[in-house]
């Protein structure tokens, strides 16, 4: 079972301690989740549908209130300070930004306007913002082609790029990425993770990413947590996790070292070993 992650040598940037989240005053979703992200780390949050990954991220970025959810227990600290009471705006100013699952682009704004909204909190001048816009276009050339299109009409993948580009515009220190790879073509998925890596290495941006594509997530992350049913059921170094038999079977789709063909999998739902 997951114990407090004191084994991490680097200083902790984000520390989530034992939080509980309730939606609508009745639905208990997170039942005491603790995790930490070290300065300059890339931490993956893995788990099945409905495990509570998105909820965890929203609890950190304080977007829960908008969905009538509440953190009822536990604390969240960023750089040693509690941030549970801050507004999302404050958090973005401090460098914490979330890329929401399901894209959430501003449908009536053009792609470029969408990306530019990400720079709302900045006041380091138009030129710097312009440079960053160019950078985003360099990361996602497709966006440049579609910059004048109304975002609501763009394709799923284009919207996903828009959402990520938008977040990058705020020059964050810590990005909460919720399913970045969803709906992206394989090539682009690789590219996105390369961008993550580059930002992490060059700009010292830390990442907490919720990702279903365990394979790639564990490849780029340094540390991982596995969430089931609102609880952390396993955590460890990415390499260790990737080597774990259960993870291999359920999250990586490997039997032994060989990938199983989807055609071959005959049984439907199998019992999770750590839950039984």
């Amino acid at each position, binding site marked *: 079972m997951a114990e407090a992650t004191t084994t991490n040598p680097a200083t902790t940037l984000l520390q989530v301690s034992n939080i509980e989240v309730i*939606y609508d005053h009745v*639905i208990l979703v997170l039942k005491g989740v603790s995790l930490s992200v070290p300065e300059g780390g890339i931490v993956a949050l*893995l*788990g*099945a*549908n*409905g*495990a509570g990954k*998105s909820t965890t991220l929203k609890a950190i970025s304080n977007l829960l209130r908008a969905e009538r959810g509440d953190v009822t227990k536990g604390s969240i600290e960023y750089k040693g300070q509690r941030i549970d009471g801050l507004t999302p705006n404050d958090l973005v100013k401090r460098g914490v930004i979330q890329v929401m*699952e*399901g*894209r959430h682009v501003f449908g009536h704004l053009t792609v470029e306007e969408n990306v530019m909204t990400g720079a709302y909190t900045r006041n380091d001048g138009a030129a710097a913002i312009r440079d960053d816009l160019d950078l985003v276009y360099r990361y996602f050339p*497709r966006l440049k082609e*579609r910059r004048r*299109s109304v975002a609501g*009409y*763009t*394709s*799923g*993948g*284009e919207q*996903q*790029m828009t959402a990520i580009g938008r977040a990058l515009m705020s020059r964050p220190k810590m990005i909460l990425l919720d*399913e970045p790879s*969803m*709906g*992206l*073509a*394989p*090539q*682009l*998925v*690789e590219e996105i993770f390369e961008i993550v890596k580059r930002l992490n290495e060059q700009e010292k941006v830390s990442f907490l990413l919720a990702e*279903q*594509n*365990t*394979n790639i997530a564990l490849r780029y992350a340094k540390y991982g947590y596995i969430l089931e049913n609102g609880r952390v059921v396993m955590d460890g170094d990415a390499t260790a996790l990737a080597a774990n038999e259960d993870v291999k079977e*359920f*999250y*990586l*789709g490997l039997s032994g070292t060989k*990938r*199983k*063909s*989807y*055609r071959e*999998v*005959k049984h*439907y*739902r*199998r019992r999770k070993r750590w839950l039984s």
Partner: protein
Amino acid sequence: MTQQSGRKIGGPLLKVQGISLSFGGVKALSDVSFEIRQHEILAIIGPNGAGKSSMLNVINGFYHPQSGTVTYKGATRKQMQPHEAAEQGIARTFQNIALFKGMSTLDNIMSGRLLKMKVNFFLQALYWGPAQREEIAHREVVERIIDFLEIQAIRKTPVGKLPYGLQKRVELGRALAAEPDLLLLDEPMAGMNVEEKEDMCRFVLDVNEEFGTTIALIEHDMGVVMDISDRVVVLDYGRKIADGVPDEVRANKDVIDAYLGVSH
């Protein structure tokens, strides 16, 4: 659901010919032709914005292409209305889940059977006799789908509150409820982990095998595509760049350049 044992890929069920579609300056599709054969699983792949979803929209009548024709079950037409497509047995799921958020899982799937419900309005108002019998008959079918998809536990939950992956499954359930001849799936496995993808693949394969439903699916996970599809159509910038069995496509130079990248 009529059971059809075994599965033999037959002649073309649907054929698109010379489809071109543009929005203002954006060319979403240009001169695309391919066919979907009876009982097969066809995958449509391609980079983001290539026009895959638009292609499905054309097939089920939501978009009306500027030129080209769609031939379905022998009838050729330039365009049709979405509900006509539905009446002729085309069902689909959506890339950005399009469930009825305020309704429960059960109601969502039941709504997939609307076209099959015939009892008139006044009997329904009284909820009496034939109306109740019909309601229960359909409920039984829907319960079978629910069992099949293993979503019994969320039968009465409003779908807006479900996690993403389950919503996708409910959406598949709604499409299946229509007992379609042609099932169009737009990224049914996006946002799922391997285990869930395995389940989903199983559902897709079973539907295809047991009921003989023809399936066209869009998917970005090459593992899934290569494993379960009989044929693959590749689009790039609105054009078809390849078309063939998975192994052929995987080896195609254009496809590798445009889509797969080096690592695959």
